């Protein structure tokens, strides 16, 4: 049984369907990258998987003892968070809210879990610092530690490296790979195709043609070929221009 099984899923807003008849399954230990152009429905798919919105039709089944609320989520940052007075510890601890249920306060076990995840992300020394004063990379680590408090099995990441500089981006990717090696299943939305091809084990390409399969199969498939060619075609001339500019 797979961790997540998606059956004939159609997604969209207000009865306006963005994407139809998706079928795929995610197994424990997979590293799935969701790629596709802007507006192809990546974020909508993510929100549907998280049950933040209802699917238009079709089903999402969980297996391997995964509860619906045991999904760790790394959302894109919102404007509210930019000036939120909250300490790192408070934010990471809020990842335990699903475990709490109706209990009003966090217990010792949850506090220990929060600390453990802060150590895992290398932010234990920052625990009393204010979130809004941290760098972009540190903030992402805080949110990742929070997501880890919510799950031991499955992480959903929505563009985890957007707005980060190349060095921090690389650190973030290796951190995610490390989590994956520890046995956490990863589903990630990415714009960055080269990183997706480097780290992922499976690719879900959504758009006019949908592809789902392993990375190797993707490179040989039609959408994969077009998409990789296109994204290199758009980046190459820019690089050439840049070089030309430098030479002058």
């Amino acid at each position, binding site marked *: 049984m797979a961790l997540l099984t998606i059956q004939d899923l159609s997604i969209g807003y207000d009865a306006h369907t963005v994407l139809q008849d998706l079928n795929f399954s995610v197994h424990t230990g997979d590293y799935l990258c969701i790629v596709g152009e802007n507006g192809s429905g990546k974020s909508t798919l993510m929100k549907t998987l998280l049950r933040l919105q209802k699917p238009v039709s079709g089903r999402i089944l969980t297996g391997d003892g995964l509860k619906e609320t045991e999904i760790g989520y790394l959302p894109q940052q919102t404007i509210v968070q930019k000036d*939120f*007075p*909250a300490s790192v510890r408070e934010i990471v601890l809020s990842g335990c809210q699903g475990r709490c249920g109706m209990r009003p306060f966090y217990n010792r076990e949850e506090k220990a879990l929060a600390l453990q995840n802060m150590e895992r992300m290398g932010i234990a020394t920052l625990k009393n610092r204010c979130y809004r004063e941290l760098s972009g990379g540190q903030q992402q680590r805080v949110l990742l530690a929070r997501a880890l408090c919510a799950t031991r099995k499955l992480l959903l990441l929505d563009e985890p490296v957007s707005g980060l500089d190349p060095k921090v981006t690389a650190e973030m990717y290796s951190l995610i790979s490390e989590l994956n090696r520890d046995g956490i299943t990863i589903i990630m939305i990415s714009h960055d195709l080269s990183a997706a091809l480097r780290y992922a084990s499976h690719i879900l390409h959504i758009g006019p043609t949908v592809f789902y399969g392993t990375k190797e199969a993707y490179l040989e498939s039609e959408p994969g070929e077009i998409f990789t060619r296109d994204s290199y075609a758009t980046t190459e001339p820019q690089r050439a221009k840049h070089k030309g500019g430098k030479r002058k």
Partner: protein
Amino acid sequence: MIEKLGMYLQYPFVRYALIVGILIALCSSLLGVTLVLKRFSLIGDGLSHVAFGAMTIAAVLNLTSQMLVILPVTVISAVFLLRSGRNAKIRGDAAVAMISVGSLAFGYLIMNIFSTSSNLSGDVCSTLFGSTSILTLTERDVAICTVLSIAVVVTFILFYNKIFAVTFDEDFSRAAGTHTDRYQLLISIVVAVIIVLAMNLVGSLLISALIIFPALSAMRLFHSFRQVTVCSAVLSVFCAALGILISILAGTPVGSTIVAVDTAAFIICCAAGLILGGIRK
């Protein structure tokens, strides 16, 4: 001066004013942080105008217990306004502005048409600025206010962690299985209760100040949610007590004196925040 104060404190209405003032200041500061961060700073304004509109209707109908009309109407409006933040055709600030201005105009209109009082502008002024009502509280008013305040504080403490989580990241909370809709509803109801309570103290127009000033002041100084919440509660209670005492001694209107003290506290906190920030760097 202390003698004069001691003399005034012998009057029960002065003691009532002080008790109610402190309780309301405490309650209104608690949710201030959440409302400011959620970009709902003006909700106090909007809802208090709704309460004003409801109050005029209750007055015209000559009801003995105006609370019965004011509270439900305000709660319904609060639920509607805070829900509309998401997936709405009319977005948050526009909806607040619409309801606020609409009910203010409606309330004044009703007062004008049906009023039996000879001093209409005086009536409107005292409802809007709460100039006298806090000094005319009865024992029953104080009891109602005390019960509601305790309910607000207990609710806030019990749901503190959830309120933090939902305010910081609603999507994450929903994904983690928290029923965010319920907590939004809870926050709306508590906000409405606080506003109806606070109308007695500072009147419709100055409620926003009571909600946002302590939160903003505390946010200059502290950097964790708990510290900010505690600090804004302490600050709010202190400013309210000081404001009431000053207004008794100097004979100034209660509501605006409290807000003036709150403003002064905000300026002091800003300065202190800048200095502390400078030292830290």
